[in-house]
């Protein structure tokens, strides 16, 4: 009898003592030369997530090839999910649709109504736990003809009312910090981790709002975020600054040549 009770207690204690580790990037902006440096950091976790703005960058005039290369690198590393950022919308609905159809990981846009294959939510099974992941974006997004961008809080509330049972909730957000804090303060359920992208900030410590840890890992592959979650919430958070070994990509010249041709005339 005592042994049976002891075993039951041990099993119960084991069930309660779970841990899930998450590594994440934010605002990668197709900075291809930096990717090999990030890979070993990212592969140290159960879940690899991205906070948006991964596939495009007007500062380096990134092209279609770099969007594909970034998506394929993310697939190879084993990203579990990402949220759409405003820079993904700059790719245009046609190219973005093609990338989304080929991406082997879910790309979330809980608050977007559009005929592109984004998902409102995903539930991933990790270490026997069901992890619900939602992703919302807002600021500076281009809303293409026929698209509708819904208020993030309204969209989250609607999705939460119909999702299956889950054990853990991670929110990916791509918006400025002030809006993210406002959203976190109004969330109707407990959120275990809020990974934020958009304003390129390096959070050495989480920003706590309404008991929700908001984290962010800078931009252009300068850092990788790491979070360990347990039954009591966030157990550990680290921001790994990644040594800058590779130079940033240089600007292509052909768009300038095309623009000059337009200005001078095609005759």
């Amino acid at each position, binding site marked *: 009898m005592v042994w049976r009770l002891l075993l039951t207690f041990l099993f119960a204690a084991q069930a309660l003592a779970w841990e899930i580790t998450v590594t994440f990037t934010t605002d990668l902006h197709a900075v291809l030369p930096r990717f090999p440096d990030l890979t070993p950091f990212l592969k140290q976790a159960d879940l690899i997530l991205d906070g948006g703005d991964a596939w*495009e960058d*007007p500062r380096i*005039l*990134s*092209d*279609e090839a770099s*969007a594909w290369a970034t998506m394929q690198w993310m697939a190879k590393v084993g990203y579990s999910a990402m949220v759409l950022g*405003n820079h993904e*919308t*700059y*790719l*245009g*609905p*046609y*190219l*973005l649709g093609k990338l989304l159809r080929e991406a082997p990981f879910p790309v979330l846009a809980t608050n977007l*109504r559009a005929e592109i294959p984004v998902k409102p939510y995903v539930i991933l099974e990790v270490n026997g736990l069901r992890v619900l992941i939602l992703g919302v974006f807002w600021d*500076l*997004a*281009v*809303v*293409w*003809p*026929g698209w*509708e*961008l819904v208020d993030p809080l309204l969209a989250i509330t609607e999705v939460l009312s119909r999702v299956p049972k889950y054990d853990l909730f991670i929110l990916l957000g791509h918006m400025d910090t002030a809006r993210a804090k406002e959203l976190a303060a109004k969330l109707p359920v407990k959120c275990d981790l809020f990974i934020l992208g958009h304003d390129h900030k390096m959070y050495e410590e989480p920003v706590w709002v309404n008991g929700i840890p908001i984290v962010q890992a800078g931009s252009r592959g300068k850092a990788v975020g790491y979070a360990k979650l347990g039954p009591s919430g966030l157990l550990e958070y680290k921001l790994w600054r990644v040594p800058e070994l590779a130079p940033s990509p240089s600007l292509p010249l052909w*768009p300038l040549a*095309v*623009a000059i041709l*337009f*200005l001078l*005339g*095609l*005759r």
Partner: protein
Amino acid sequence: MSGAGAIVVGPAPWAVLPLGPIQLFLGYCEPPFLLRVQILRGPWFAWLDLPPPRIAFGRSPGHALVALVREWQTLNLAWEIMGSPWLSLYGSLGCDNALGLRFRWKQWWFSGLIREGGLSLWFGVYF
């Protein structure tokens, strides 16, 4: 730009029919038929209109769309800046100057356009 179809009602109504990478424009304007071939579809955008031959080249540098539009003798910079998901400011600079405000709701939009000193109102739906 998206390859979507549209019906637009205003002083000179027109419609767009999407046919894969080609769009057919039909309207009460000159020319009444126009064929648009999408050459680049992101992140650089380029398209060719026939007739008359007109070529455009653009990009979205942030939450705006800008495109250089070249006809045989004229050059324009077409642009649209998103103020919010519901509101945008758009216009044209160069040989043809115009300024408009567009309100969107789902697939519907309503716009006021100032061009050649006059205001015109437009209403459209994407499909």
